[in-house]
């Protein structure tokens, strides 16, 4: 049953050192505020799952909180590379990280299988691809009807999933609109789910019946964090702050600059700054 909490409580109650955690959002609705709270609390030795690691994982990795990253595209979307993640992989700074690399199709299927309670995902993938030579978590099953060899990967079952969404009702039901990504699957695949939202509304009585809604009993903690996706965006609320994505390329290029920026913009502030960051977007 969903509990309304402060972000500080929600993170402290749900995420522990050593946990496997997914922060999802496909360009849209990336839970930046939640990731920053994790950084402030210094929760470490995390196994991070995410299709597109993006800025938030660059930050978590750069702060030394990740021991392993499970991913399918490690880029700053539309800008370039993830420089903190590269520095960790290439130079072990600030610590070495293990990587488990998949394709998008495998990651999406692995979340789907997790949501569906299955031990593994079966799909037609990785044919001729190099990843299956270097990732032992890529195996295969044979179709018992046609003999075709299909790819199999373990289902994602994170300890915690963090997502950001448009609205929660007072009862704790959650509405996700627009580019919905893999968030529903990531929540349903997880043991615990923390959802930050732009807005809390009385009820969902007037919604179209076929929208992407998570019932309150699938969510552990709910937190009201307006602007909580910035510099990602929230469809219907504010636009993507593309300039911040471009800026990140410079900040993340330099270890010292990164460290200073994290102190000023993450460690020394709280979730309330997000509302002001999206003003005018």
């Amino acid at each position: 049953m969903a509990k309304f909490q402060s972000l500080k409580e929600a993170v402290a109650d749900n995420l522990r050192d050593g946990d496997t955690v997914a922060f999802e959002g496909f360009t849209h609705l990336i839970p930046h505020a939640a990731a920053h709270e994790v950084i402030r609390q210094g929760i470490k030795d995390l196994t991070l799952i995410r299709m597109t690691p993006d800025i938030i994982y660059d930050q978590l990795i750069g702060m030394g909180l990740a021991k392993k990253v499970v991913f399918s595209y490690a880029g700053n979307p539309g800008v370039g590379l993830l420089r903190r993640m590269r520095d960790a992989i290439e130079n072990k700074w600030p610590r070495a990280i293990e990587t488990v690399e998949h394709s998008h199709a495998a990651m999406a299927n692995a979340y789907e299988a997790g949501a569906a309670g299955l031990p593994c995902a079966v799909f037609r993938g990785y044919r001729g691809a190099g990843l299956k030579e270097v990732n032992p978590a890529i195996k295969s099953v044979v179709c018992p009807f046609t003999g075709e060899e299909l790819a199999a990967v373990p289902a994602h079952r994170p300890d915690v999933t963090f997502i950001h969404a448009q609205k929660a009702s007072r009862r704790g039901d959650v509405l996700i609109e627009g580019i919905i990504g893999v968030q529903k699957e990531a929540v349903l695949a997880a043991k615990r789910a923390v959802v930050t939202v732009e807005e809390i509304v009385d009820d969902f009585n007037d919604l179209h019946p076929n929208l992407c809604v998570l019932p309150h009993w699938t969510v552990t903690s709910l937190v009201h964090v307006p602007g909580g996706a910035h510099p990602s965006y929230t469809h219907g609320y504010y636009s993507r702050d593309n300039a911040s994505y471009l800026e990140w390329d410079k900040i993340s290029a330099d270890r010292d600059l990164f460290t200073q920026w994290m102190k000023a913009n993450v460690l020394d502030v709280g979730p309330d700054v997000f509302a002001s960051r999206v003003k005018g977007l």
Partner: protein
Amino acid sequence: MTVSAFTPNEMMTIAASRALSNDDVCFVGIGAPSAACNVARLTHAPDITLIYESGTIGTAPDVLPLSIGDGELCETALTTVSVPEMFRYWLQGGRISIGFLGAAQLDRFGNINTTVIGDYHHPKVRLPGGGGAPEIATSCKEVFITMKQATRGMVEKIDFYTSFGHGDGGDHRKRLGIDTKGPTLLITDLALWKPDPESKEFTVVSMHPGVTREQVQETCGWRVRFAERVEETPPPTALELTTLRDLQARTEGAHSGKKGA
């Protein structure tokens, strides 16, 4: 500025756009593919269906997205589905006619590396990785590749098989049980290349205006094969060029804006 002056990049994008038709359903990557697909949509292929892996089906963005999941894509789409559905029903379901891929490294058989330079476990450079590419390369009916020519990119041997093209050539796809066509067109800033029907080696079939065979060879890491008859790519038309430039100007304006712009 006269429209007859154009850059190699513009020629590349426009040549790619011409390869698309009204009936195509394209899985679009960011960058040159996105520009090419939208130029096609805004010129000769108004009914083309553009799909971005973020789940947006039938998009018609007014500006090019910076990321694969920009809000504009969803707002102009016929519908937006979840990412698992996108990869299961739409890509794996065999409903995409053209998949567009870029490459950090490419070999003569259309195999692509966007994963690492050097050894996978101890990379010299860690690149972003494959994203959707491994399955785009095998599930789409055909694959178009766009990249700027450079010996660093067009190499004899790629460091990692991010996505499979024609493998070692010949019937290698068929031998792996892959029944889609794979790379059927390579569009560079200098030329158009198509796989040889037998060997599947990319062969120059058309060079862009003013480009020489020497230029094509100098910027390519393998010994280039030219078709028996090499065409000259028709230069961009005024409509193509203004459409592309207008699109890029709108895009620039939309994305460079700081807060509140």
